[in-house]
């Protein structure tokens, strides 16, 4: 095991896969000389050159469309969209092109494309602080991955690049500098579509992903220490296809469930997850499913106001306390 930051883990997945597969190319805005707006691609153009690490114009729809075409032509493109807020400009290409071609053309070809993008906030104001994984996860034809740890970031990105289908890989800006143990063996995948139970418990299940997984783990510690409540924590890792059996099995053990997300309460990913678990686990539940989510408000700039809205471990603790 080596200790890597989440940022280094993402980078090392790209580097390893580029070394072993010459079809893999990267493209994105300011990903070469600048090193990427979150410095993820730093050093890669030096190793692989500008034909494989392509500096692009500021053209999100064009970038994804181009990457779709490159994939159809035999390459394995990894397109970086600076943040998920800008991915909105590329929604058409993601939803109507990448996600549709395999189905619509009767399985004649697939689109092996990874779109890497970033969620997060930090006084960036309403247009730069949004979280849209629920939108992507609602689209059949896409696979949606949101790693929480460096090991998963690396292993899932390797799996995503090798996957023949389009994968939306959403990183989190507040996780980039977090550290964790990552297996040293090169090319080790973490499979897409598998959740993991990262902490075992008996009283309540906390389901999270990406940054909210860390918040759930923190809440679990607080609840154990202060309330003697034993929390089981599930990391979804992949939002589509979603590993319902792992969640259902956990609810079968704990009979209580809190869904932890960062996106808006209305129409957020947790809403559809809640409805599905309600259908599957109703008889196992001893309490209504609780949700932690962003209030339906654009995220403001002011530090005070922003902090008031960002979902964090305290809301998870409160939700569990309200249940018992």
């Amino acid at each position: 095991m080596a200790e890597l930051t989440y940022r280094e883990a993402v980078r090392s997945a790209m580097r390893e896969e580029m070394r072993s597969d010459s079809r893999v190319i990267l493209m994105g805005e300011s990903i070469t000389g600048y090193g990427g707006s979150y410095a993820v691609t730093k050093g890669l153009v030096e190793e692989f050159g500008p034909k494989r690490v392509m500096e692009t114009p500021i053209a999100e729809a064009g970038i994804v469309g181009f990457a779709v075409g490159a994939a159809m032509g035999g390459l394995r493109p990894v397109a970086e969209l600076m943040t998920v807020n800008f991915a909105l400009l590329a929604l058409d290409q993601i939803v109507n092109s990448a996600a549709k071609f395999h189905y619509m053309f009767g399985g004649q070809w697939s689109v092996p494309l990874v779109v890497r993008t970033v969620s997060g906030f930090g006084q960036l104001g309403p247009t730069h602080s949004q979280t849209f994984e629920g939108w992507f996860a609602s689209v059949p034809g896409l696979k949606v991955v949101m790693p929480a740890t460096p090991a998963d970031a690396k292993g899932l990105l390797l799996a995503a690049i090798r996957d023949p289908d389009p994968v939306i890989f959403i990183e989190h800006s507040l996780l980039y500098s977090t550290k964790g143990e990552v297996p040293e063996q090169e090319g080790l995948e973490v499979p897409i579509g598998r959740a993991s139970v990262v902490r075992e418990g008996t009283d309540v299940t906390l389901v999270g992903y990406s940054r909210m997984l860390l918040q759930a783990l923190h809440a679990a510690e607080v609840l154990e220490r202060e309330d003697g409540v034993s929390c089981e924590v599930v990391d979804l890792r992949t939002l589509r296809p979603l590993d319902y059996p792992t969640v259902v099995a956990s609810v079968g053990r704990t009979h209580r469930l809190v869904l932890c997300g960062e996106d808006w309460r209305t129409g957020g990913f947790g809403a559809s997850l809640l409805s599905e678990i309600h259908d599957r686990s109703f008889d196992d539940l001893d309490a209504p499913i609780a949700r932690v989510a962003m209030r339906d408000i654009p995220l403001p700039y002011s530090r005070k106001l922003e902090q008031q809205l960002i979902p964090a471990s305290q809301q998870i603790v409160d939700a569990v306390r309200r249940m018992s």
Partner: protein
Amino acid sequence: MATTPRKSRPRAAARSSGALPHGLTAQQCRDMYRKMVQIRHFEDHAAEAYAQAKVGGFLHLYIGEEAVAVGAIAAVREDDHILGHYRDHGYALARGCDVRACMAELFGRDTGICHGRGGSMHLADASRHFWGGHAIVGSHIPIGAGMAYAMQYLEQPLVVLDFFGDGATGNGIFHEGLNMAALWNLPVVFICENNLYGMGATLAEESPVSDMMIKAEGYTMPAVQCDGMDVLSVYGAVQQAAEHCRSGKGPFFVEAMTYRFRGHSMADPELYRDKEEVRRWRELDPIPRFGDFLVQHRITSPQELAEVNEEVEAEMLEAVRFADSSPWPEPDSVDRWIYAKPIDPEATEEAPSMAGNPAGAAS
């Protein structure tokens, strides 16, 4: 086929036999004629089937524009790549896709070229390097550029033909695609079918310039305009464009001036244009025009042309019969092909495998 020019037609003499334009052979000319007739008859039958409610959804006919797809696609290699917009029957037939499978796709049958998943607007045949009808206006423009990048990267001497309409040039994605193609010097021919309308919008309503090739200039892309009602004019323009691309000189823009004789789709009452205008353009019908040329140049005879029409009509009747009698897709197959590699978390609850795949990508 060598022909002896008639004394009374000196101009024709200059262009006959070995002197056919653009290095074309007589056989290639006859093939192009047949392809145009195929498209025309295919569209007539599609319209008829639509009227009988055997074809549903949106149906956009290519009638009047046949010379564009046929001339352009004849001018490139069989393995050069083709993408086009939703008015796509012409590209498919010009590329030699199976007529019966195309018709069956319109009928929504399992024997359809996309097994009934795509319909009229989404024909495709990867085995013939025809990568689809694309129904989001302009969306396939950067996709074509990306395919061209793959050709350049993989050092394949292939070019991409990317067809779209005048209306598409108003969309941002058109500009993003052209910008990248020019920036990276990619082997893609952008073919704008300027048929004077984007659905019900006239050129004057949708664009500050009526010549779409002007829009290529800002991207330093060479451009030519050709007569989209003349298959030879289109052939010549695209031949020049493809040579330019193939020799590594970057993208090329071809504007084909053309006209659709029918409405935008079957649902179009055509309130925005007058019948006189349609009549004038119909006089330029590319099929009799090319037929006359072939007869004048003794490449074929009126009888042979009539035979072509009969053969094609028989072929289309058979295609309709085939489509109409083909099975529907199995209901159970409805969720097939959502993914190339379906992952079913429900299938097993066993612990995730940590097996690596260092050899690189699967498939």
